[in-house]
């Protein structure tokens, strides 16, 4: 057997791939589902908190900042283990799926809050001042004047961050979420062959590469205003 044959047999074994492709496909579904949920919930949470912070109510802002700092400074895996193994002992039992979703959503929320807040503060002060005398209230100014401008600025960094954090769904493997990576490592140990890992890697690239390319495009498009 030539080296190339051996390589193909080990990493791209047709029989193994065919046998485990359905499992990995189920994993793809789990990963996609989680990713979509995390992006939607995390971005919404971050935006909401940034808006609340715009009202500059000192104690509330303080709490938001503490939350954002903590979740930006802590490795998500630490939080995942902490929640997954700690909470049941205090009577809160969450599925591994729920833990993964909650932690990554909170993590993205923290980053999104910082990014959107930077966008809000970067929006020209003149915009606030121009809008208020026209009779718009604070909330209306925020929602109709400032946010739309902030959104343009925050989309590139937010996209980058969202990709980085949704990729962390792979961490769910550690607590048994049946995502792509989990299916692949299980299949790998059953089959004694590395092909499922190759398939997993390919699946991630197929899933995320379009977004990576999108983020590159967004960055060059919005290059006029960097946060």
């Amino acid at each position, binding site marked *: 057997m030539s080296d190339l044959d051996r390589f193909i047999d080990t990493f791209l074994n047709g029989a193994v791939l065919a046998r485990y492709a359905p499992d990995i496909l189920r994993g793809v579904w789990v990963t996609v589902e989680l990713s979509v949920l995390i992006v939607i919930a995390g971005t919404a949470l971050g935006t909401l908190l940034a808006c609340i912070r715009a009202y500059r109510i000192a104690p509330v802002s303080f709490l938001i900042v503490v939350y954002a700092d903590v979740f930006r400074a802590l490795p998500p895996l*630490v939080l995942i283990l902490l929640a997954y193994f*700690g909470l049941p002992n*205090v009577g809160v039992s969450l599925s591994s799926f729920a833990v993964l979703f909650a932690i990554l959503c909170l993590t993205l929320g923290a980053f999104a809050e910082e990014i959107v807040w930077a966008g809000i*503060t970067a929006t020209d002060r003149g915009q606030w001042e121009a809008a208020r005398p026209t009779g718009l209230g604070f909330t209306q100014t925020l929602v109709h004047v400032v946010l739309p401008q902030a959104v343009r600025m925050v989309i590139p960094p937010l996209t980058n961050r969202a990709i980085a954090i949704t990729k962390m769904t792979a961490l769910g493997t550690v607590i048994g979420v049946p995502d792509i990576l989990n299916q692949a490592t299980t299949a*790998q140990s059953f089959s004694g062959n590395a092909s499922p890992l190759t398939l997993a*890697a390919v699946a*991630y690239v197929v899933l995320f590469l379009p977004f990576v390319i999108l983020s590159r495009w967004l960055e060059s498009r919005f290059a006029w205003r960097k946060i």
Partner: protein
Amino acid sequence: MDQLIQQFFNWDIMMRAWPMLLRGLGMTLLICAAVIPLGLLGGLLAALASTSARPWLRWPGMALVDLFRALPPLVLLIFVYAGLPFAGIRLSPFAAVTVAFFLNNSAYYGEIFRAGLISVGQGQTDAARSTGLTARQTLIHVVLPQATRNVLPDLISNTVEVVKLTSIASVVSMGELLHAADLARSVTYNASPLTMAAGIYLLMLWPVVRLLSRYQRQIAV
């Protein structure tokens, strides 16, 4: 409430786990000392390739960067650690972590350096070359110092991410901070060692995170 404190903030257990966690912290720092410089170097090379005027350098450079930005680091790590042995390449956990992080970090630092290089105008290069500086001298003495300064906050913020990311080395039993804490958790049936690990990460990274926010605000205003 008592139960909560018992479960997450148990002082006795923390004290017992402390020596283990300290060793773990040492390993975390060791990993950082290896993967941060390597990642910066790889990132610089990736950035030079992907901003090169030569298409045969630029396209592969960009493709590699995008590929490794699309792959979750944990997938990369498991592939290197559990997949490569099938091809007869058996790496120690430390080597596997170093290789996987090198690939992942190079892509991320690479994108940052790329933005930095682009931010330095062509005029700087023109001026330097017109005085007879070679391309390499121009890069080292004129372009890189400015590029680095322009993207310093991004470089620092990515470094925070790298430090956090070292926690996934626990998956290949690397014995770093999180692994140590999780071992302590599994023998004590108590989450306090994990809380403690979280506290240590927080102590290390929170000041940096705060500083970065401050700095960004200054730019914005």
